[in-house]
């Protein structure tokens, strides 16, 4: 069973604010999911390679050439706050 402290730590890492009620709810939910997958620990996987790409393509590359976007205004229109064509964020320091 996950503890409330563990859930709060995960939520901080995931950058999601939780109320105390939600901490309790997700503590139960995440525990259910972790219990569900627990059986995998019994599977013998000695010597097996992990799967990272299923169709076998490797190192697909393209030329690193800059391309001018034709939709900068459209992109910036979605930003909650901008200033002089830049994204505006709260002070970091």
């Amino acid at each position, binding site marked *: 069973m996950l503890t409330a402290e563990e859930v709060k730590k995960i939520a901080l890492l995931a950058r999601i*604010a939780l109320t105390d009620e939600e901490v309790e709810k997700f503590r139960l939910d*995440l525990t259910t999911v*972790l219990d569900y997958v627990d*059986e995998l620990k019994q599977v013998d*996987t000695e010597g097996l390679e992990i799967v990272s790409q*299923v*169709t076998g393509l490797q190192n697909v590359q393209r030329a690193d050439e800059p391309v001018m976007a034709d939709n900068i205004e459209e992109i910036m229109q*979605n930003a*909650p706050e901008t200033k002089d064509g830049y994204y505006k964020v709260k*002070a970091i320091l």
Partner: protein
Amino acid sequence: MEYEYWPLAKLRQELDDGEVSSVELTKYFLERLKRANPELNAFLTITEERAFGQAREADEFIATAGANPALCGIPYAAKDLFLTRGVRTTAASKILDNYIAPYDSTVIKKLDEQKAVMVGKTNLDQFAHGSSGETSAYGPTKNPWDKTRMPGGSSSGSAAAIAAGLVPFALATETGGSIRQPASLSGVSGWKPTYGRVSRYGVIAMVSSTDSPGAIAGSVKDLALVAEAISGLDPHDSTTSPVEVPQYSKLLNPDIKGLKIGIPKEYFIEGMEAGVEQSVREAITELEKQGAELVEVSLPNTKYGSLVYAIVAPSEISSNLARYDGIRYGHVAKDAKDLLEVYQKSRAEGFGDEAKRRIMTGTYVLSAGYYDAYYKKAQKVRRLIVDEFAEVFKQVDVLACPSSPNVAAPLGKAADDPLFGYIADQLNIPGSLAGLPALSVPCGFSENLPVGLQIIGPQWGEQKVFNVGHAFQLATDWHTKHPKT
């Protein structure tokens, strides 16, 4: 004239013969879907103005000499996970409620080039997280066969729209069952492509190692036409394959004499509905009658598929959904006092519970100290699943089995069950983890609700699964049954 449920080839003929214009067809389907949508909730956005613009262009093109592309002038709907330039694209989440896509996904572009006509964006489980349609922030889609039930998900709106005859075909996406399961529950045909067959560029990401854009339509023949149009190598998605795209529709061959069809015994699970099993067994017998050779096969690691997915999917989700931070686009919390709070509150307000649950599960299993025990372990068990399929496809051409262990459940059944999707999709997930192409085709009814037959092929084996599905649809009429509207 009534145009709903017409095969795409028949609409093509009618348009080419000048019997109907694209503008008229577009008007017909727009009126039909606007009438049905308040009850079904299959569409989140109706793109009337854009549609008529495209339809007029298609009509002008048809009026010029020469052949027309297969989908020219034909209306369609796109799951609201496909970015559509200048059109609101929400992923059925509040965090993207006001998001106007600044570019088109490759698939939308390819359909634009064919001069197909997009009439709207369909509802889905939020960020495609779910198997019921219920996690949408805009309310669940209803199953046209029984409006008290779910249509399946996550491509809930696309499946319901086809079932109700609201569009001739619809774009959908699969990650672990999101096309096959709703197609099955809604009594329509769905195609989940080989991973890398169709570009993921501009499709809002969920699980990048299994995400596969595909389609839902009225028949396998229609799906073959759409597959030809949307498949292929894309420089914007390095996981798309240079393997040539065959002319699936022209090569469709319903002669399945001597074809070896594997029946994986683990797909007839304990607890599956008796009526579902009966319909699927009868469908398999029909394939045998057509001359296919049935071979019982065993895929013993099937039972681990959903468990592997329950680790791998949230892991990739937690990474892919990190981009929703309230800075560049999407919902931003109003009262945050510093940057950390902007992130935390924007995400808390914007994401639904299922998205939060998956992000946090992924964050946990990827965090220091747990990575090897969960993520790495799951990716190793995934190897067993991939290898086991490869082995079985040395013996058989395709696999036939149920698409879903049950018919459509009542709405509300998925609510707040953290395991609902993993269990609902257990017969689809192993194939997704291995990147295999598959179909779900209607094959009967249980308690008056549709049942789906699943046909799974080896990687790049689209033509084989289309052939088997087509042979089945030439011999049966389940795909021509429609709900009363």
